[in-house]
């Protein structure tokens, strides 16, 4: 009896410990963002004594956080949509068609290697190319880059889903008069829907959070995204701590809200995105 109780208490202590370590840094940022700058720099209180939203108003009046938000949402949506469209078709082709000299294995393999290529190693030529094409500081440049990287993610994740779907179902549909295309759209895609959802979630999170390309390819609120906007508040000698913490909250909020709404599929999306 006492042993059970001790076990129970140990379990709860561990749970609380994990939650505290995970959540405290974020709570501190939120707490700081709700303090006046006077309280932050002079009083050094742990929790805000008087709540103020002044830091948040400052982000939207006078700073361009409204534009950052719309840019982020627009660029993420378009690039993930393109990637899902292109990527599912490519993944289906790789999963179903046999090409000359088993080319499909090599294509699949190269796409996977490309997917693991870190952005930093191509940042210089991408920047120089965008400069030549006059695409610097436009959403188009970011959309192209994100769509390309996301497509490799989609191909790699979706190919295994398509492989698991029995060929017989499409063949039966094609005997009944469907073409390859209609069979793909009406039979295969609906069956692969859970995979599509997981893939989409993973791509949205990665894209929204991306910083390096956005930092290098954009320079004004016309195209800057949330992470870049949040980072512009840092690095000066006199840091405006209140504005910086509010920018952190506003910067992370959209993706946290998104994650909250898709939480049922989140674990699957993140796990598969990592290992598939």
């Amino acid at each position, binding site marked *: 009896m006492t042993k059970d109780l001790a076990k129970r208490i140990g379990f709860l202590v561990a749970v609380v410990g994990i939650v505290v370590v*995970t959540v405290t840094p*974020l709570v501190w940022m939120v707490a*700081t963002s709700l303090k006046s700058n006077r309280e932050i720099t002079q009083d050094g209180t*742990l929790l805000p004594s008087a709540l103020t939203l002044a830091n948040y108003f400052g982000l939207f009046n006078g700073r361009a956080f409204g534009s950052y938000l719309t840019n982020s949402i627009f660029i993420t949506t378009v690039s993930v949509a393109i990637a899902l469209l292109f990527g599912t078709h490519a993944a289906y082709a790789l999963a179903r068609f046999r090409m000359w000299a088993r080319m499909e294995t090599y294509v699949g393999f190269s796409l996977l290697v490309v997917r693991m290529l870190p952005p930093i*190693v191509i940042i*210089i030529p991408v920047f120089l190319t965008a400069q030549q094409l006059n695409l610097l500081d436009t959403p188009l440049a970011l959309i192209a880059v994100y769509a390309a990287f996301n497509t490799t993610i989609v191909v790699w994740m979706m190919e295994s889903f398509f492989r698991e779907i029995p060929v017989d179902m499409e063949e039966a549909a094609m005997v009944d008069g469907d073409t390859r295309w209609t069979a793909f759209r009406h039979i295969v895609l609906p069956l692969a829907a859970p995979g599509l959802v997981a893939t989409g979630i993973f791509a949205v999170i990665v894209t929204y959070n991306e*910083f390096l390309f956005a930092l*290098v390819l954009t320079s004004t609120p016309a195209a800057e995204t949330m992470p870049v906007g949040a980072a512009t508040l840092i690095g000066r000698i006199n840091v405006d701590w209140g504005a910086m913490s509010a920018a*952190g909250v506003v910067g992370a909020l959209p993706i946290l809200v998104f994650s909250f709404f898709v939480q049922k599929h989140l674990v699957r999306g993140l796990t598969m995105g990592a290992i598939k």
Partner: protein
Amino acid sequence: MLAPTMFLVLGVIVYPFIEGIRTSTGFYRYGKLVQDVGLGNYTQAFSDPAFIGSLFTTARFVFFAVTIETVIGLCLALFCAREGRIIRALRMTIIVPMVVTPVVVGIVFRLIYASDVGLLASFAKAIGVSPPEILGSTTWAFWGLVFLDAWEWTPLLFLILLAGIQSLPVEPFEAAKVDGAGAWRTFVDHTLPMLKPTILVAVTLRTIDALTTFDQVYVLTRGGPGTATQLVSIYGYQTFFTYQQAGYAAAMLIIVAVVVLVAAGFAVALMRRGVR
């Protein structure tokens, strides 16, 4: 069906990569090619103490961060490999840090480490000790960065290892229970050996990502103080965008790319073996 994907990936990722190789053989001044230096930039890199230093800093960072993440991630995964309402909520809480925008993670930890207004400083003041100097100290800034990375990415290791544990067969564990083996013996004799392939994949994937960590350092320290947190990605970025040395920066990043691609090839081979 493959064409759009190939077009996009070749145009936006592969072509720049090849352009990067070409750039790496030139000497640039103010963005203009001055002369072709062949492999000169590469020999320069290997005799540049700053580059070698950044490689060592990166290696040290990756080693400590990934080790800590693997050990804690494994403990968390073992702890969460049971069912229950609390555990399900705990799993969702644990993965929050990996969803938070990396730039914002940098902000969060600036707000913790800052010597005047940070959480640690406020806490120290509250209990009456002198506030610790973290971002201004060459030793502590490095460990501060390692801790940041551990906080952010332990969830990834946790997720992959949890998926691994949940897919283990149950029979060996039941047999061990019948034999009266303790929890530790069961872990060493059964869990660890069966989980080894998953651990290997998880560690390799995390290592690949950690090798080019950029966003958090950019926000937290910009590589400083001195060169204490100057990872190779930060040094390469500064060489191009601050010092305008396109050729030399490209050469450094190509060296990084080679290291990453070797690791990525290794990871792909591991995963393919796991699949079949």
